[in-house]
């Protein structure tokens, strides 16, 4: 390229740069935060749910929203925002300062939503039918400051899906303790329970990836049953507890599953839940701790008669099973706050909960009803759901109400992933380091108790 042609370009570049800066400055000044929006009780509501568009679950949510409109006369439009990019889409709308009116999302997101100022406070006693909703479900709608920031909609607990045919093949009973469970998983791994003559079965199916904190999520039940914890309440706030003796002992047992007895499936330390679902349904895994929402899928792929649902056995710390769920969040800046509340009340009402069970179309958005007047297992005519309900009622335990639980979950999963991937690592030392990291994170969140 000749010099003559190149010469004027510098000047033009500067011009373009100036234009870019001018436009950027203009957009920057245009952004300023607004106060409470003007209220209009007839304004249509925009409802977001974390389900893939076109899925049966999205259909159930659509049915729920239509029933709400019929009941209340308030127009509402459902948007099924994909499971994978829900947070990104919400961030985009946040940046535009135009949030949907209602978001139905994980209880685990509550701390983050509150910290970001995206949700309105809910007056628990002011919610119609509030007393009928389970206390445990309300607990999952409570923020770090003790106030409520959502109305419960769906809850769930986890249970062990155990290959019944394998258990009978190796001649073992239903495990009653964690030790028996571990023994069973060893038998499943070593005794060729599927009888194909190959050493290709794994006793325990574990999503050990750090993606979305899966390992923490899976390990919570084992840790809590053993009397350990990630963080525990101390003083006005929380402090790391993962380095305490009971926690370390539980983590050592976890490490043994990967390194010693090797009952975890191959590739467990990088497996996310989609990998573990596939592994279990392909008939290579024996024991899988997961939620009730997997029953329809495994009934189809594996067969209903092949596996049984049992409660995770109690440990030294008694019974404690991870409980989760979804809340109806009333998003900030809505132009129809009365409509928001009405939607949340309808979703939690017996009528709303029954639609969410998805009995007709298989689109389950309410796994275990939060409304105690609805008997989900009876409605479904499937006693296995009763097992899940009992686990939730008797030993369900919510994740701690931190300002940002997902950060703690992420850090913990990285620390745990370290000890299961590197078998030579000393658990006590590694958990000491993790505890320091957790304390630093709590400090940053302003939730560190002395």
């Amino acid at each position: 390229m000749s010099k003559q042609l190149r010469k004027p370009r510098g000047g033009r570049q500067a011009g373009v740069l100036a234009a870019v800066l001018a436009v950027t400055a203009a957009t920057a000044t245009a952004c300023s935060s607004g106060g409470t929006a003007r209220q209009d009780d007839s304004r249509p509501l925009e409802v977001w749910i974390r389900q893939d568009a076109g899925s049966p679950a999205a259909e159930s949510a659509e049915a729920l929203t239509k029933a709400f409109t019929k009941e209340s006369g308030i127009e509402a439009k459902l948007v099924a925002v994909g499971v994978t990019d829900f947070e990104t889409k919400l961030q985009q709308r946040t940046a535009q300062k135009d949030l949907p009116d209602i978001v139905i999302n994980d209880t685990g997101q509550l701390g983050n939503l509150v910290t970001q100022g995206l949700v309105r406070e809910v007056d628990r006693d002011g919610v119609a039918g509030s007393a009928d909703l389970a206390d445990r479900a309300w607990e999952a709608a409570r923020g770090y400051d003790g106030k409520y920031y959502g109305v419960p909609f769906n809850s769930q607990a986890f249970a062990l899906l155990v290959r019944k045919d394998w258990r009978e093949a190796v001649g073992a009973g239903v495990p009653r303790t964690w030790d028996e469970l571990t023994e069973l998983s060893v038998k499943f791994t070593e005794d060729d329970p599927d009888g194909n003559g190959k050493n290709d079965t794994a006793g325990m199916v574990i999503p050990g990836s750090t993606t979305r904190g899966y390992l923490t999520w899976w390990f919570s039940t084992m840790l809590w049953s053993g009397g350990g914890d990630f963080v525990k309440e101390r003083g006005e706030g929380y402090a790391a507890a993962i380095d305490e003796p009971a926690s370390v002992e539980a983590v050592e047992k976890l490490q043994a599953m990967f390194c010693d007895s090797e009952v975890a499936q191959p590739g467990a330390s990088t497996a996310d839940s989609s990998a573990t679902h596939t592994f279990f349904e392909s008939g290579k895994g024996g024991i899988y701790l997961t939620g009730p929402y997997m029953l329809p899928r495994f009934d189809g792929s594996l067969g209903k008669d092949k596996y049984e649902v049992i409660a995770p056995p109690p440990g030294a710390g008694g019974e404690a099973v991870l409980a989760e769920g979804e809340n109806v969040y009333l998003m900030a800046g809505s132009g129809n706050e009365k409509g928001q509340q009405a939607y949340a009340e309808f979703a939690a009402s017996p009528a709303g909960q029954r639609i969410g069970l998805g009995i007709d179309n298989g689109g389950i958005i309410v796994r275990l009803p939060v409304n105690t007047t609805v008997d989900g297992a009876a409605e479904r005519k499937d006693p296995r759901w009763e097992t899940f309900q009992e686990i939730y009622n008797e030993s369900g335990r919510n994740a701690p109400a931190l300002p940002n639980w997902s950060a703690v979950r992420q850090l913990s999963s990285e620390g745990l992933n370290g000890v299961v991937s590197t078998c030579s690592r000393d658990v006590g030392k590694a958990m000491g380091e993790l505890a320091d990291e957790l304390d630093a994170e709590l400090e940053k969140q302003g939730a560190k108790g002395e």
Partner: protein
Amino acid sequence: MTATEARTSPGPGTRRPLRAGPPAKARLRRAATPWLFLAPALLLFLYFKFIPMVQAVRMSFEEVRPFLGNTYVGGANYAEIAGSSDFGAAVWHTVVLAVATTAGSIVLGLALALLLEGQTRSLWFVRSAIFLPVVTAMAVVAEVWRVMYYPAEGGALNSVLSVFGLGPSEFLNSPDSSLASIAFVGVWRGAPYDMMIFLAGLAGVDRMLYEASAVDGASRFRRIWHVTLPGLRPVFAILLTLAAIRGLRIFTEVFLLTNGGPDGSTEVLLTLTYKLGLERNELGVAAAGTVLLFLVLLVLTVASRLRRREAR
């Protein structure tokens, strides 16, 4: 560019027009024409690239709370990310991956190009077949490799290893072999791309030099060393620049194959940024990470341009 030149200056004979110069209006129009053609693309770039970039720089100095309003925190985000041990490890893994993938791709790409240079119809077919990994979507490639890397006896690659009495290897699943396994996928995918650029470069090497060196009795290896490689120097410059930038931006492979695990052994800059921003919700710190990456890439690009200009 050549077309415009041809139109505005029809030939050396008519270079100087009869008039003193076109009127100002025509000159303005001529200057504006290319910009008008570029305008749609530039507008899109402005809106989807440049404005977000500037916003990311701004976010890197703030605690990001989009709805409540961001608060300025100065260099705290930079201090946090640069000070964390995760960041140091991520930089190291990124550099190792970039160097290994680049070196492997160039060596293998050159070897393939030398083997497959020529006009024969069958070569065209083989070249296309070898090029396939480049045009296949990374998501598909990663999923296929995850299956092939299955870390137990039944796995595809482990079956091959067992023929030679080796394995089973843990591949992606062990902190010792995970990074190498990802680099291998990178080479498998990058080498055919490099091969294509080498093939273009080889076409420009003067045939006479080969013949002359053959007459002088140079061996095949010496011909490659003294004729081909010096002839390919500009190609190497392009490939190294491209590879360095591509290597530092590596994300999809790692995200889909291991997502930084096991034990953080494959955490690279962008997976770390992704986790900070979208999993821990610390968008300001994540933005600081990307700004640092941007600065490194900027320095690399400018340096390589300056070097090329000097070389000319």
